[in-house]
């Protein structure tokens, strides 16, 4: 019952978010510039401008435009791209798989690196090597992901010539973008995990497990790490938001044809139906991901599971 209630709660949040995002964008976009000017080019006549305005419904009062716009949104009609005339949503959805591929790969890469590393660092945080590595990660956290991406291209694509720096067809082209995007997330997650593991290691249940003869490995993997992972739930929501932000920059650096790349291009061309559609798709994506994580953690943690059932 509670699971249903929390789902309804989340759906309401999604609705508020979508309404907020679209309303805000609508008004900022209309305030900022005249899209017709962009559309028609610099040397269009006044008649041509008027015709275009009529065609796109831009001659009506702002409130009417807004209501029409909301009405169309409810039918998933974001209007056509000003640049290409294709329905904006179709354009975005066509780019979505590439973005999902990149963020999925990077997420897997991040978890594969951050979990063992965080566990190792947190298990005996006072050992000299680990303190050095922890310090290194603290510095690394200060290196913006896009700088790492650029340096990776410089070293592995330009200087060594081992890996391609653009394209997304072959597997070899996936490596640099994945590592680059992963480097946005790995330092933060590793540091939080290490702190959580270190904290868990001081808990009574660890002492009990040790007293009952559990080995180091068992203590770490069966007792400390699961609890440390659950402690990162609060971070996950912001992590995904961060992941998407990182994806945008990474797609630009590696000319990866995803929605981040499309966003920049549309933003520069004032192609606002597409910008709108991207904002909405991103909001829905975040919602789905967060709902899934909630569910996943609910299944993992007996305390949450029981609270949800009872």
């Amino acid at each position, binding site marked *: 019952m509670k699971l249903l209630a929390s789902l309804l709660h989340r759906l309401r*949040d999604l609705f*508020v*978010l979508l309404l*907020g*995002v679209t309303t805000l*964008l609508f008004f*900022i*976009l209309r*305030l*900022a*510039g005249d899209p017709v000017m962009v559309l028609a080019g610099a040397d269009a006549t006044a008649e041509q401008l008027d015709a275009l305005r009529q065609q796109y419904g831009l001659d009506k009062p702002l409130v009417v435009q807004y209501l029409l716009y909301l009405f169309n949104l409810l039918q998933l009609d974001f209007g056509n791209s000003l640049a290409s005339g294709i329905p904006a949503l179709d354009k975005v959805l066509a780019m979505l798989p590439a973005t999902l591929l990149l963020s999925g790969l990077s997420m897997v890469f991040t978890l594969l690196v951050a979990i063992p590393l965080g566990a190792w660092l947190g298990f005996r945080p006072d050992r000299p090597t680990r303190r050095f590595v922890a310090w290194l990660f*603290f*510095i690394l*956290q*200060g*290196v*913006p992901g*896009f*700088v790492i991406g*650029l*340096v990776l*291209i*410089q070293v592995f694509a*330009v*200087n060594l010539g081992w890996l391609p720096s653009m394209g997304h067809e072959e597997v070899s082209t996936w490596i640099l973008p994945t590592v680059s995007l992963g480097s946005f997330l790995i330092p933060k997650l590793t*540091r*939080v995990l290490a*702190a959580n593991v270190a904290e868990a290691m001081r808990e009574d249940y660890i002492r009990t497990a040790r007293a009952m003869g559990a080995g180091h490995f068992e203590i770490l993997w069966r007792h400390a790490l699961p609890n440390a992972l659950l402690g990162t739930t609060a971070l996950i*929501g*912001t992590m995904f*938001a*961060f992941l*998407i*932000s*990182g994806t*945008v*920059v990474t797609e*630009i650096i590696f000319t990866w044809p995803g929605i981040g790349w499309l*966003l*920049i291009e*549309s*933003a*520069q061309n*004032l192609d*606002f139906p597409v*910008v709108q559609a*991207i*904002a909405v798709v*991103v*909001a829905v994506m*975040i919602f789905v991901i*967060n709902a899934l994580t909630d569910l996943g953690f609910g299944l993992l943690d007996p305390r949450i599971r029981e609270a949800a059932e009872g």
Partner: protein
Amino acid sequence: MVISITRRLRRARLKTSAAIELGWGITFGLALLGMTLFQGVLSTYDPMQSDLLNRFAAPGSQAHWLGSDNLGRDLWSRALAGLEWSLSAALIATLLAAAIGTTLGLVAAESQGRTRAVIRQLVDLVLAFPGLVAAICVIAVVGQGFWPLVLTLGLLSWPVFARVTYAESLSLMERDYVLAARLMGVGRWRILFGHVLPGLRATLMVMLAFHFADMLIAESALSFLGLAAPLGEPTWGNMLAESRAHLFRAPWMLFVPAAAIVLAVVTANVLGDGMAAVSRGKARGIDL
């Protein structure tokens, strides 16, 4: 007895290492600040001046000690100019975010019912949406330039402050001294801003430093994407973007601004971490 001695020693050692870290942070912070203030003296060229005879000069060359770019512009002078742009953009954005976030956090802690619910909802919503995507959408339409950039960053990034202020001031409001003030008839808002807010000082200082670092990264990312500073303006993001066409010819065009960004961000992080370590106990829950 023995345990208490080792414990005390350990604590003393932690305190020293925290003080050392803070010292490094302050030293580098002051150095960067000094470089900004004395830019006129330190700068060897006009950052916009091109020198077509010395294009792609490597670092260490006579005319340009950090090298020059595709138009022969001096990278050291450009990096210095970028420092000023980045520090001021990040500083104003951080202060704006802190002002909005702290106020709303305090208000949410004091008020009950609907106001609190609305603020919390707002915070959750903004935090859930990718900041960079939001910033790109806004900047794309309001246009480039220093003030659009700073306002966008500040207005989009305050929820972090609101969330922490809210949580911390809730616990501060339970303290005896706040209760005493209340009993003496001090007004609600005066308690909030005169008694609770000062108690948040340590936490806020740490958050300001970390937020500053985040703003530096966000600013340079937006500028790299061609959305913040006008083209050709000497900012680190622009310099990185310019370097992309010349990776084979002049890798230093990439490494100079990259090193500048990393230095500034790491300095802010060290400063924040040092302050957190020194005032640990006071500033709890700051591992953001």
